[in-house]
């Protein structure tokens, strides 16, 4: 079973190489990419079942004993994240295949799209199964470099502008992460997560807090936690629809995943929890207010993305098993729903030629299927019962109420308010883009004119009857169905999240995995030359 663990990284990596070699054969590229992601999904499911049944898997890469070599760890949280990311990445890939088939090479130079996308997958998987901080950094870098390419795909002016912001901010967070790794190594003489967790308790409190804050800032930028979230709504909306969907679903959640690891394994102490709760509150409120002010569907969705990161941080900040479990369920829910909404926005763009809600209208009549595919995840994100958004928020609020205290109750109130604001922003999209008739749109142009305007200079012919490829609709519909399944199978899923969170109740379970008995083996690989005696 342990042999399967490296495969989730190796398969997309080799598939990326293969698709790069097959650059001239778009059809083969598509098949290879889709097969690779399907394989990762299947392996992920097998791993999840195995890990849930028999306990976590640990792989010593290159057979080096644990503290000396690179170690891969798959526990319930990792396995769950691997499954859900593989699922989302596959759906988005199918969507982009559909879009690419009809668009030709208008938007995406296909020959680099698939390899880059697979490299992104590789990075995501490395980040989820990494057992040490530096490997986590490498995973982040792999997925970030791939995302730099994807976000500037085609190299148009607006994308270059947005890409520069994204690249520079990400680089800054990487530099901070690297600096915190250096500090951790200087203080503890190791970067292995379990070893760090064992040794960190011996450090003086001020050094602990310093390291804790450095790691949180580095991951906070990636997770788009306020006030480090400014870059996200600026850079995501300009990328091609499927790219934005994958980014919105996954990349910020990897930051949240890293924060969960930091909060549960390395620093389970409650010193910074109130600060995190305040940040969660601000993230929720500021994001939601931003969403209300916007007039473009993709930008509205980007702001709701920021705002809902706040819910996950709330769950983590509670520092209880119930809070972590709710956060894990919420992450799964949000990855699926946010991706679906961005895919639906891609369909809207396709149908109406724009995502600006002041320019489009009448979509309910002209594209009823798209309307349904947008409406369900929109209600889901807004937290309308019985959808998974409601279950996730309920879990979070319950966990917060169990903890009690003024701050927790303020957060519950703010969370309820923010879900209403989210609903308001999305209902505004619904009213303007779908509900009102075309005649009410000020300055409405014919679609042909718009099509000409949309694609200046790209081809010598502009056709009016652009049909939406079936693959795009199908993959969005599948994602909507997955979102509904999260509601239908909420019981088992929430139980799984609970079990995953129990593993994360303090560092002991994680340490036990690598060092049975909770004691480091004598004479470990590093003779402690970099260690500080506190």
């Amino acid at each position, binding site marked *: 079973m342990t042999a399967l663990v490296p495969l989730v990284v190796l398969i997309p990596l080799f598939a990326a190489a293969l698709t790069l070699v097959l*650059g*001239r*054969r778009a*059809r083969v590229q598509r098949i290879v990419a889709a097969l690779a992601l399907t394989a990762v999904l299947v392996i992920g499911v097998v791993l999840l079942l195995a890990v849930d049944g028999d306990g976590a898997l640990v792989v010593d890469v290159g057979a080096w004993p644990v503290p000396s070599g690179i170690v891969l760890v798959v526990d319930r949280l990792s396995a769950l994240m691997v499954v859900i990311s593989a699922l989302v990445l596959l759906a988005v890939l199918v969507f982009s295949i559909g879009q690419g*088939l009809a*668009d*030709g*090479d*208008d*938007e995406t*130079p*296909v*020959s*680099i799209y698939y390899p880059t996308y697979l490299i992104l997958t590789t990075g995501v998987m490395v980040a989820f199964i990494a057992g040490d901080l*530096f490997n986590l950094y*490498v995973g982040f870098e792999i997925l970030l*470099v791939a995302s*730099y390419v994807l976000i500037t795909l*085609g*190299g*148009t*002016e*607006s994308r*270059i*502008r*947005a890409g520069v*912001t994204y*690249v520079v901010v990400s*680089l*800054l967070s*990487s*530099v901070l992460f*690297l*600096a915190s*790794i*250096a500090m951790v*190594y*200087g203080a503890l003489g190791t*970067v292995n997560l379990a070893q760090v967790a064992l040794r960190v308790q011996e450090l003086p409190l001020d050094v602990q807090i310093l390291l804790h804050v450095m790691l949180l800032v580095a991951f906070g930028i990636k997770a788009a936690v306020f006030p480090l979230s400014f870059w996200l709504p600026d850079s995501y*909306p*300009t990328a091609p629809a499927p790219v934005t969907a994958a980014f919105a679903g996954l990349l910020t959640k990897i930051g949240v995943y890293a924060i969960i690891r930091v909060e549960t394994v390395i620093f389970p102490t409650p010193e910074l929890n109130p600060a995190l709760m305040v940040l969660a509150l601000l993230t929720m409120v500021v994001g939601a207010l931003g969403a209300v*002010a916007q*007039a*473009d569907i993709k930008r509205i969705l980007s702001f709701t993305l920021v705002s809902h990161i706040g819910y996950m941080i709330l769950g983590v900040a509670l520092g209880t098993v119930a809070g972590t479990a709710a956060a894990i369920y919420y992450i799964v829910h949000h990855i699926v729903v946010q991706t679906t909404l961005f895919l639906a926005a891609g369909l809207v763009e396709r149908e109406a030629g*724009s995502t600006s809600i002041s320019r489009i209208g009448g979509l309910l009549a002209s594209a009823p299927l798209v309307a349904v595919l947008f409406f369900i995840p929109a209600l889901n994100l807004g937290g309308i019962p019985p959808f998974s958004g409601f279950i996730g928020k309920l879990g979070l609020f319950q966990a917060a109420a169990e903890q009690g205290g003024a701050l927790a109750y303020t957060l519950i109130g703010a969370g309820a308010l923010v879900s209403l604001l989210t609903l308001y922003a999305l209902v505004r999209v619904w009213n303007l883009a779908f509900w009102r008739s075309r005649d009410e749109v000020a300055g409405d142009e014919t679609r*042909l004119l718009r099509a*000409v305007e949309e*694609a*200046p*200079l*790209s081809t010598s*012919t502009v056709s*009016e*009857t*652009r049909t939406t490829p079936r693959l795009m609709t199908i993959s969005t519909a599948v994602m909507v169905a997955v979102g509904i399944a999260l509601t239908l199978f909420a019981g088992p899923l929430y139980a799984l999240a609970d079990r995953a969170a129990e593993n994360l109740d303090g560092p002991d379970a994680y340490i036990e995995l690598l060092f049975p008995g909770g004691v480091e083996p004598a004479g470990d690989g*590093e*003779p402690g*030359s*970099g*260690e500080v005696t506190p």
Partner: protein
Amino acid sequence: MTLSLVLIIVMAVLIAAGVYLVLERSLTRVVLGVLLMGNGVNLLMLSMAGPAGLAPLVIDGVEAEQYSDPLPQALILTAIVITFAVSAFLLALIYRSWRLANADDVSDDADDVALRGGEVTLPMEETAPDEGDTEFPLEAEVAQGGPGVDATERVVIVTDNDSSSAPEGGGGR
């Protein structure tokens, strides 16, 4: 653990200069700033390895403490490679930005500016005036009927020829 004061000072100077440069609007300076910060952090990692020692090759009769710690050096090597790749990408990005706009500045987000002005109508996303990215004076060329003109003339035909005209593979731009 003993630290080299010189290394610490150099690191601080590198990171301070890097932060200053990253705050500039000019992208070239931003790249230089990122490079300086990256190297500053590498120095931080190096100083965390403790005092310099013998090359970490096992020699008989040498105590473990006399070797220098090899792990931070391995980490730095990885970080250098990553910084190298990313700065190459950034330079390409800057070159592209300069080709498109004849500027290497970070400009404001058009949507943000529109919202700030209280104007609800947002400009549409501009897609790919790619063929028009000849050296910049495109409008002047248009006025003079120069080589850029034919790119702006288009025939509008109402057909569904999307799937048939889609080139397979398309070797990128």
